[in-house]
């Protein structure tokens, strides 16, 4: 069996815009991202708003057409697939969205929501089989059979997210792209949903692409973590190396900015100055250089190449070798 389940090569997503200063130009939401995800692995993607992490999820699912690049799922190049061909592919790849209030149709009962993928993909012929499968799915995500008749507004945020997960699981996908699945939930509910996702991963050997702005949540659930800034990766590594030895100055600042829930650990933070530049007006050279305190002349001119620190750890920074010590 192929060990690599999802392969993304130089994926780009540009949106045409017209600005006063530059005339016709592009918002570079995704500016050439490349990575592989192994079967059964969880890749966590972190980054701040506007870094392109959600666009990446949508593009890989082909809910928006990529501008350029290649997406290979389970050995099959799906980049150029049309609607019809994608319908088959969506049995393998499913999404869970951020806002459990907006991602469920308020006019459909929970039964209809969870049964819809089964009907669309004609997975079961008889009504009885569909009924049985819906109830099985609801139980798997910690809901009860009687919930099937109810409507989304009757549920709390955590329960709605469970319904969204049941819908994604219905077709027994191999990959689930989860875009900020716990961000809208309270802490005590967040941990319930995270535990559920871990259990399901174990049970079905699922592969997750877990997108979040919360570094502690990503550390908890992922095997490998990629950090994005302005549409590209700045660093990607196995969880332990990334959190123990972050190399890229942006990763270091991001990790240091996370408030630690322990009053004994109040310490000086790396405070980044300024804001993320607009993706229309991306800085030349290394995109992070205007906010980087280690910036040198080359950073302003040349786009940094990928530097390998170890087998599972690479960084896009001109001075990576120096920082890695």
């Amino acid at each position, binding site marked *: 069996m192929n060990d690599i389940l999802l392969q993304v090569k130089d994926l780009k997503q540009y949106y045409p815009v017209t600005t006063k200063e530059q005339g016709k130009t592009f918002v570079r939401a995704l500016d050439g991202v490349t990575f592989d995800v192994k079967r059964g692995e969880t890749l966590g993607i972190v980054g701040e708003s506007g870094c392109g992490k959600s666009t990446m999820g949508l593009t890989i699912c082909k809910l928006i057409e990529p501008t350029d690049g290649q997406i290979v799922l389970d050995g099959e190049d799906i980049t150029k697939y049309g609607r019809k061909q994608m319908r088959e592919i969506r049995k393998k790849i499913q999404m869970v969205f951020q806002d459990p209030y907006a991602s469920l149709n308020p006019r459909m009962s929970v039964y209809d929501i969870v049964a819809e993928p089964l009907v669309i993909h004609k997975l079961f012929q008889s009504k009885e089989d569909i009924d049985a499968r819906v109830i099985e799915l609801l139980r798997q995500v910690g809901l009860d059979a009687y919930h099937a008749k109810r409507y989304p507004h009757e549920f709390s945020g955590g329960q709605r997210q469970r319904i969204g997960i049941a819908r994604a699981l219905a077709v027994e996908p191999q990959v689930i792209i989860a875009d900020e699945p716990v961000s809208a939930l309270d802490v005590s509910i967040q941990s319930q949903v995270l535990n559920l996702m871990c259990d399901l991963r174990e049970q079905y050997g699922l592969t997750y692409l877990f997108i979040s702005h919360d570094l502690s949540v990503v550390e908890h659930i992922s095997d490998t973590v990629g950090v994005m800034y302005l549409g590209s990766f700045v660093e990607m590594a196995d969880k332990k190396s990334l959190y123990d030895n972050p190399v890229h100055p942006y990763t270091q600042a991001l990790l240091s*900015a996370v408030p630690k*829930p322990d*009053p004994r650990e109040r310490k000086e933070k790396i405070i980044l100055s300024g804001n993320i530049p607009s993706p229309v007006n991306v800085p030349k050279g290394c995109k992070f250089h205007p906010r980087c305190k280690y910036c040198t002349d080359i950073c302003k001119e040349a786009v940094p190449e990928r530097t390998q620190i170890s087998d599972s750890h690479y960084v896009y920074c001109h001075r990576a070798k120096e920082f890695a010590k």
Partner: protein
Amino acid sequence: MEDKNILEVKNLCTYFFTDRGVVKAVDGLDFDLEEGSVLGIVGESGSGKSVTSLAIMDLLRGTTGKVVEGEIWFQGRNLVELSEEERRMIRGKDISMIFQEPMTSLNPTIKVGEQVAEVIRLHQGASKQEAMERTIEILKETGLPRVESMAKEYPFQLSGGQRQRVMIAMALACRPKILIADEPTTALDVTIQAQILELMKELQKKSGTSIIFITHSLGVVAEMCDKVLVMYCSKAVETGDVNTIFLEPKHPYTQGLLASIPKIGSQADRLDSIPGNVPNPKHMPSGCKFAPRCAFADERCGQEEPPFFDYGNGHKCRCWLCEKDFKG
């Protein structure tokens, strides 16, 4: 009123009278804010933490909510008994507030500089020009770039972090005694959150303002606060100084909250979680409100509301488990 407390809240009850019945958003809340300190109020959605701040600010007028009982003591006066006019003189001058969503809490049709200047003109009787000069000064203090031109821009032209800095400038314009910050960094990215928290710490050190910091993020509390008040279902369940609450919490809810957040570097396979959901405010359990979700609950917990056991040094806990510590 003790001298060191700048604000004392006693048995505050704030109810909402809706067509479908009474919702007790805050039900018998007591706390003190020490002068020059930072008090964190934590709790999940619906625990009543925001309503508490609205009650102190007198911003419940025009809603169905009302302070039905209790006292809010500030500078020798019980705010609850004051007239609307008197409250307005305090609001924005002595007690001011920063809100969560900096987009919706600034007026989109007024230039940001004018919005800050309005507070100064209103409370300090400054002329238009004086107010503008003060505004530019204050905006500079918050670390905003190119202040002169930015003051003439509208909120939509600013980023989230910049808008929050404008909110902070506005709140601090009259050098208030108390600043209430309701989830001031929740809508911001982590690196921007770090900038804003740093700014608030700096300004607090400089002006000695006392702060009530309302948030659901325990990380932010651990970083910013001296004292912590944990709320659950419209009541305080535990309060104490920040080290006590984080290192030796007594209440099962506080313990559960702390255990359910993923901690960087912990390498735990599973998170502890609190089972169930926050109860619907219209069907509050009798007895301890946390009992239906509590692993230690027994029969009494479901019937009798526990008192606020006082461990001294400001550490109090509302749980029957504490009773054994006070026997004999």
